[in-house]
């Protein structure tokens, strides 16, 4: 009762503080006040997500997978992470939805309906790895600000759409084009209509790649609302924030795009390495482009107890941003020795690759199976958390699972 009274009094006094005057009959004011928390829908049902997904944030929606959930070669919607910056747009009408190509470096501004996009341009399907730039942020020390992703902000679904290049070329690209920037229909958290939650982009060269799509299908169906229905820009291998959801405009810019979350410290790391916790000026931060080499053990789930003498099948995926993974290794002795295991070629460029192996354990006890991938440039995942940066991006440290042999 004392706590209730205390909370009640503080609630009232803070309302009072907000309004700047004492609220007469304040004790009766809360009557009929309907707590929003009780009306909130279940995000797992609403977005058709696996119950084992981890909800990090509900305004905006942010949800990540656990390693063992990502075992499928093509990630199904049920285990795809959600990273939203603003509020999901409401009342989307696919019949009236349009995409406009404009900007200082467009030859002729053009607007397309969804039907026009689908009929006018050739359609392509690619499996594309999208990883949140902040995946692994939770491990940085000192901690970095933002959603504390562990390992589950990555997926590799199959996307169908038209090439961004074909659409850009239809409108015409001037010689001075440097960057493209997307604009979308989501709403800023503050509700301000003139503020955009996120508006990012890529250099013109990335926009012209075969695999950079304006997608309208994911895994053969309409893109789920939370993942960008009806149109999403998909640029595999780069921070997933580049793959804008609910897009309705793409500008061909004659300078580096300066939309929301392109500037300041957003999706940027120090141009030169810094000590943990060091202050970095905005002008010393550089935009993240290709994501680094990384891998994930998706089978077995961490915590498996096996019988002495039994060998253990492990498998998972590896990816390397713009590059390919050429070597996959595992260690059961904290990196003292490494054994190579098999790695498949990607389904297409920018798709993750699958590895598998059989692990033997010399005797009973506690083990950790660590996995590490190496890319075409000979760069290998670090065992410790890599270079600290103010916003906690690009943690590609080795993934590991716990195993007990009894």
């Amino acid at each position: 009762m004392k706590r209730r009274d205390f909370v009640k009094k503080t609630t009232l006094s803070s309302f009072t503080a907000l309004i700047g005057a004492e609220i007469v009959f304040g004790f009766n004011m809360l009557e009929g006040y309907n707590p929003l928390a009780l009306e909130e829908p279940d995000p797992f049902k609403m977005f058709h997500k696996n119950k084992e997904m981890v909800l990090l944030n509900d305004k905006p929606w942010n949800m990540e997978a656990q390693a063992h959930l990502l075992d499928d070669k093509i990630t199904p919607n049920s285990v795809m992470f959600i990273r939203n910056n603003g509020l999901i747009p409401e009342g989307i009408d696919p019949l009236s939805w349009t995409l406009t190509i404009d900007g200082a470096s467009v030859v002729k501004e053009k607007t397309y309906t969804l039907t026009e996009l689908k009929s006018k341009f050739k359609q392509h399907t690619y499996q594309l790895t999208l990883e949140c730039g902040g995946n692994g942020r939770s491990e940085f020390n000192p901690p970095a600000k933002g959603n504390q992703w562990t390992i589950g902000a990555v997926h590799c679904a199959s996307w169908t759409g038209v090439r961004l290049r074909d659409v850009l070329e239809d409108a015409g690209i001037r010689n001075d084009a440097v960057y493209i920037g997307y604009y979308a229909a989501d709403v800023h958290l503050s509700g301000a209509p003139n503020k955009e939650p996120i508006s990012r982009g890529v250099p013109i060269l990335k926009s012209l790649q075969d695999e950079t799509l304006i997608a309208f299908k994911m895994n053969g169906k309409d893109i789920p609302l939370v993942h960008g229905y009806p149109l999403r820009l998909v640029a595999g291998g780069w921070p997933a924030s580049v793959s804008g959801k609910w897009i309705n405009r793409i500008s061909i810019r004659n300078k580096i795009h300066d939309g929301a979350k392109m500037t300041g410290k957003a999706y940027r790391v120090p141009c030169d390495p810094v000590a943990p916790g060091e202050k970095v000026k905005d002008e010393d931060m550089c935009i993240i482009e290709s994501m680094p080499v990384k891998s994930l053990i998706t089978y077995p789930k961490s915590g498996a107890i096996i019988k002495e003498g039994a060998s253990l099948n492990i498998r998972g995926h590896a990816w390397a941003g713009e590059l390919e993974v050429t070597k996959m290794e595992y260690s059961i002795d904290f990196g003292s020795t490494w054994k190579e295991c098999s790695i498949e070629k990607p389904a297409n460029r920018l798709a993750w690759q699958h590895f598998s192996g059989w692990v033997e354990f010399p005797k009973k006890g506690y083990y950790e199976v660590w996995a590490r991938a190496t890319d075409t440039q000979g760069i290998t995942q670090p065992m410790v958390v890599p270079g600290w940066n103010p916003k906690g991006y690009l943690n590609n440290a080795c993934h590991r699972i716990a195993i007990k042999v009894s």
Partner: protein
Amino acid sequence: MNKGEEFKKSVKILYHLMMAGFCLFIMVGVLMTYYVFDPNFSAFKNHTETTTLLKEVDENIIENGIHLRTGFVYAEGLMTVINNCTNCHSAKLVIQNRMSKEHWNETIRWMQETQKLWDLGLNQEIIVNYLVTNYPVEDTGRRENLTNILWYDLEN
């Protein structure tokens, strides 16, 4: 005092005692019957006050030191934090983070410059103190031990 008067007096006392007993019996009976229909005796309480309390409790239940609706730790400054920090984004975003005083102040400044957060005035100190006290930064080193492992038998 003669015997007659003494007898009369005794009868009078007995009568009073019986009447008192009867009244008590009736009263207890009424109370018990009432109790069957309204065990909380709510009809005798201030109605407005009761419903207000119930509604308010829904909003701000504290269980095991946690404000259930938001998940925030129950401590000094809680309501100031709720009222200023959960309008735009979820409390979940705050709870996930661990920052120093300086870093929180910098974050607040960033929210004011780019995210339409209002001037917090004297509340800023209350908020930042609440955050650094209840969600302190811990040194986690360069790589932590695996924790919260759920062991299970794996048959190959």
